[in-house]
């Protein structure tokens, strides 16, 4: 990790603005780091030529004083975002070779603001997974290892490539997406910061759809301020997404470091679950103490339907997925496996193109939407979803934000949970409620466990109140003074 790759995004932008170094220089350092990182399997596509071209164009803009807010900063892009002319597979065999002829709105916004693309980041297939093991291109490996151990750990999922690349300094920041915890859980597993904004903040246009009422893009980076800078560029109204919020995007960076004195922080008692490692409980207590020291008022709150969030999610998300993924029929793009007739061609194409977890979820989704089960499963889940959202509305009567652990464990070994779908789903127990209610959430690295692995704390805010999360997140970041970094072994 030599050269300029260890800088924060903020420091890199300052260095570029002061002409301490050029975008070409910092991009070349990143290209070298990415090329030497194959053991992590974080990048599925590397675009060094495009990166250099974008970097040189950025340097030219700097010299004429036309630089944008992200000008010259090399970033990684989760492979769920369609990028024009660059293979975009969403971790799936069915999209192998797919080169979009258009650019997603979020990535367009980043390029508009001058960012440089290093390549596409690995992920669970169609973002369905919590360990990156469902990727058709093999799992991403976490740059962190237990002290003295050499077992390969998961970086979490589904944005595992984004998390691993940010933690291993293979980009200054990355895009990610979060349907049930796919930004926050990997952030916690890799000692990075991840933000899932309010549903509708970032346009979903050009992002491969999983569960459209839950999917939301957000940034991952090494500091809270860096995620604030990225989110400001990623977010914004887009007429091409009918659920895009038509409001001015705040200057999120201005909330970082702001006083949190007098803010009321809710501690939901239902987030104390059986079997949670004592270290995570202790870290939560520590987080409470930090915010108290910073002048916050701590209040106990109850979110009584918390335990029903995951089962509701595992009806709603597969139901939406089964509908969204119907488009992969082998006719207009992607894989086609010829059969004796049209139906057989569909069936063979989808059998070979989709991995096991994706098929499992399509089957569940098809089942819960089928005649005779729609009311009992799907409609029931939508009603439970309302009750979960109501719980939060109740909590906002007495508090301004919530503090919880991000995940019920630290990073686990690859292969450890892959045989038990429900055990894998429980990874998202603390994160999924936020998606169902559409609220913003953030994971901040706050400490390490006895084995030296990072742990995260989650902040949950009111609708559209990312600003308060950035203030609270930077307060925790300052108090935790989290400086641990993975030891380079790759």
């Amino acid at each position: 990790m030599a050269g300029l790759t260890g800088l924060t995004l903020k420091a890199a932008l300052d260095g570029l603005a002061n002409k301490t170094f050029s975008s070409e220089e910092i991009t070349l350092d990143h290209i070298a780091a990415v090329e030497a990182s194959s053991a992590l399997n974080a990048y599925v596509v590397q675009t060094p030529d495009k990166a250099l071209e974008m970097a040189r164009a950025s340097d030219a803009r700097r010299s004429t004083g036309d630089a944008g807010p992200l000008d010259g900063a090399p970033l990684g892009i989760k492979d769920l975002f369609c990028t024009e002319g660059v293979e975009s597979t969403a971790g799936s065999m069915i999209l192998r070779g797919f080169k979009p002829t258009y650019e997603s709105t979020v990535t367009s916004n980043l390029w508009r603001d001058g960012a440089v693309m290093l390549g596409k980041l690995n992920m669970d297939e169609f973002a369905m997974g919590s360990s990156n093991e469902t990727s058709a291109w093999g799992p991403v490996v976490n740059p962190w290892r237990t002290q003295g151990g050499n077992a390969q750990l998961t970086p979490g999922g589904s944005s595992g490539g984004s998390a691993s690349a940010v933690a291993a300094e293979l980009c200054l920041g990355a895009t990610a997406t979060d349907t049930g915890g796919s930004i926050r859980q990997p952030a916690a597993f890799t000692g990075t910061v991840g933000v899932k904004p309010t549903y509708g903040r970032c346009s979903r246009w050009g992002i491969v759809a999983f569960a459209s009422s839950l999917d939301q893009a957000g940034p991952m980076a090494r500091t809270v301020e860096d995620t604030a800078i990225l989110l400001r560029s990623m977010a914004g109204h887009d007429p091409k997404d009918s659920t895009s919020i038509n409001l001015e995007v705040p200057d999120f960076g201005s909330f970082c470091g702001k006083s949190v004195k007098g803010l009321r922080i809710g501690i939901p008692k239902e987030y104390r679950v059986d079997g949670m490692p004592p270290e995570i409980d202790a870290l939560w207590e520590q987080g409470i103490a930090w915010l108290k020291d910073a002048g916050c008022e701590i209040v106990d709150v109850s979110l009584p339907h918390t335990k029903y969030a995951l089962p509701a999610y595992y009806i709603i998300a597969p139901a939406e997925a089964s509908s969204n993924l119907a488009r992969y029929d082998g006719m207009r793009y992607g894989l086609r496996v010829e059969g004796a007739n049209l139906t057989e061609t569909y069936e063979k194409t989808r059998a070979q193109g989709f991995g096991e977890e994706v098929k499992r979820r399509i089957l569940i989704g098809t089942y819960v939407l089928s005649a005779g089960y729609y009311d009992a499963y799907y409609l029931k889940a939508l009603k439970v979803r309302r009750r979960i959202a109501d719980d939060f509305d109740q909590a906002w009567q007495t508090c301004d934000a919530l503090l919880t652990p991000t995940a019920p464990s630290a990073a686990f070994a690859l292969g450890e949970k892959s045989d038990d779908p429900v055990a894998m789903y429980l990874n998202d127990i603390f994160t999924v409620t936020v998606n169902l209610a559409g609220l913003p959430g953030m994971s901040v690295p706050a400490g390490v466990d006895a084995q030296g692995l990072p742990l995260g704390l989650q902040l949950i805010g009111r609708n559209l109140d990312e600003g308060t999360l950035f203030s609270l997140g930077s307060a925790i970041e300052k108090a935790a003074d989290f400086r641990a970094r993975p030891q380079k072994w790759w």
Partner: protein
Amino acid sequence: MAIDAETVRKVARLARIAEPEDRLEPLARELSGILDWIEQLAEVNTDGVEPMTTSVAMKLPMRDDVVTDGGDPARVLSNAPKTDKGFFIVPKVVE
């Protein structure tokens, strides 16, 4: 068990996914395991609760019904598995 092999066969057919005969039983077990766990939703009282389909409380925006894109068949066809003379080539649909 909520789902048997026959149900898996039917659902896989609806979803247009070919599942080999020897996968039907294991899938029935896996899916039943997940659905058994989901059954706990029955404990929640949802009488009179409106189903929540979106977290964005806003009216669906409308736009003028005008052409905004198109006229570029080469781009539309560029990722197709099979094309001929500006058309998608698909299996025979009508006998």
